[in-house]
């Protein structure tokens, strides 16, 4: 790490700010995201379906565009930091290029570097993502507070970890080779799951309390929506979760109660890759290999 970043008083990553997802049936998927999951659908452009979850202008979008439809948005502190990060990623042979104005417009950001991790996950490093002046108004009372973070599939966890470390993320805990990555005071915003393929594993949305996790759990059962895992509680982060699956295998999660990291630094803790490390209540995922302790 260069001296200029070691002495920084501000972090490199400001937030995880959006997920853009490619699906074969955006309309059916959009109905799931709004009517079932409970995000606010907002006017779309370029054939994309867009959703809000908080004060952000957009936090989820769905499109059919295989070429430039899928990515996760990482808000970088400022333009100078973005330049520095771009340089660093290139030095370490990661794919990075500056987004053109059309690409920035589609992402509702001021500027962006479009990068790829070693698995080929598209990571948009962006500045000044747009916020909305109107408050978030959801279609149903799912209790969503804000977009919280993501789970990413990784086919090359060593190099992918290097990618995120260049962005200033730190591993807080391991479950087997699953890495929980911290970018701020929360235990993690990004979790890297070793997998046979790349792509977004889940996008997680914070809800108000356990009440909403459980209400949503019964709501999903009543609506015959597949619950991939949960209600459960991650052992390492103490986060309560419910992972649900919509069309095209899109997994969205309700989460609450993640541990905050405060006090003196500690080394990352190692948990074994067992069911109780992933959920200490006893919930298990049968169908999603990354979420089931199959190794």
């Amino acid at each position, binding site marked *: 790490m260069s001296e200029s970043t070691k002495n920084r008083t501000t972090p490199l990553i400001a937030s995880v700010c959006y997920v853009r997802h490619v699906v074969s049936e955006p309309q059916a998927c959009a109905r799931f995201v709004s009517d079932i999951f409970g995000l606010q659908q907002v006017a779309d452009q370029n054939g994309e379906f867009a959703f809000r979850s908080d004060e952000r202008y957009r936090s989820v979008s769905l499109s059919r565009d295989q070429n430039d439809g899928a990515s996760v948005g990482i808000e970088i502190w400022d333009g100078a930091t973005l330049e520095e990060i771009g340089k660093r990623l290139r030095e370490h042979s990661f794919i990075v290029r500056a987004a053109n104005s059309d690409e920035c417009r589609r992402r509702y950001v001021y500027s962006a570097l479009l990068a790829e991790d070693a698995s080929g996950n598209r990571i948009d490093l962006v500045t000044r993502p747009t916020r909305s002046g109107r408050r978030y108004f959801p279609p149903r009372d799912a209790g969503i507070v804000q977009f919280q973070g993501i789970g990413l599939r990784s086919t090359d966890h060593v190099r992918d970890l290097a990618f995120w470390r260049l962005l200033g993320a730190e591993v807080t805990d391991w479950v087997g080779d699953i890495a929980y990555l911290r970018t701020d005071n929360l235990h993690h915003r990004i979790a890297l799951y070793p997998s046979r393929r790349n792509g977004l594993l889940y996008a997680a949305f914070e809800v108000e309390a*356990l009440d909403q996790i*459980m209400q949503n*759990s*019964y709501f999903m059962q009543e609506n015959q929506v597949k619950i991939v895992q949960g*209600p459960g*509680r991650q052992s390492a982060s103490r986060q309560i979760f419910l992972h649900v699956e919509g069309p095209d295998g899109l997994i969205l999660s309700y989460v609450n109660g993640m541990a905050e990291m405060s006090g003196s630094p500690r080394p990352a803790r190692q948990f074994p890759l067992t069911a109780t490390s992933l959920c200490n*209540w*006893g919930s298990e995922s049968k169908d999603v290999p990354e979420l089931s302790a199959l190794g």
Partner: protein
Amino acid sequence: MIQLKDVSYVRLGSPELEQAESFATACLGLQIAERDNKSLYLRSDERAHTLCYSEGDPRDQTVGFEVEDKGSLEVAASTLEALGHAVHAGTAQEAEQRKVKAFIGFRDPTGNHIELVVRPERSGRRYFASRDAGITGFSHIGLNSTDPLRDEKFWTQVCNARVSDRIGDIPLMRVNAIHHTIALVRAPQAGIQHINHQVESNDDVLRSFYFLNEKRVPIVFGPGRHPTSGARFLYFKGPNGMIFEYSVGVDEIDDEATHRPRQFGFEPTSFCMWGSKPAGMVLPNK
């Protein structure tokens, strides 16, 4: 007025003590205090016992409530007799079986067998669970009532119970600061509808949900949350169809003088605000 201090114990008849023991320890998670051919004493907290299975008919179900002293017991006996309830004065041997100094037995207007006890024993040794269910203690019972309006009058006018909330005509009644110690349930005959143990945290409720599912113990209601008491709950079925409940976070009524019972509608959301539906368990009827 009969001054109930707290619920003290439940006694259940059981034709299969071994089955009861295996459920109580491997599933429910209580500690065996004492066991002989004819009875099994179980602990859930600092008390010497809070649940006793004794060889017999499972329809024999008794709830014990603690009263202040022998004087209170005598006053209670004469009050009950004056109202036409037959009162049984516990013998020394019967008191010993119950680990109390003295007691009387009677039937409430529905016919539930109730005992009033003096000085139930505590244990010097702390409670040590047979499995990590997080139990912190025996807390309340659901009691069958063939006429909730009549029985509410008995518990609140002859005894000192106060109504904390009502769902339809079903009262949840307290005898101390805890939101409810007696929950009446409309039923065609006398009996204990459920036995509640408190647990430490939400985690314990959810962990037990997965644990009991795995053990193939029928979950009959929950995991859920009562909007009345605020408690997160799980109901499941034990031997002879007896329903047990784990719950956490039962409200306390801080202001005894000004608390007014809230009226909840008789509908599913009044029993669970999360949306769980009872299965294999009858909700209190209207």
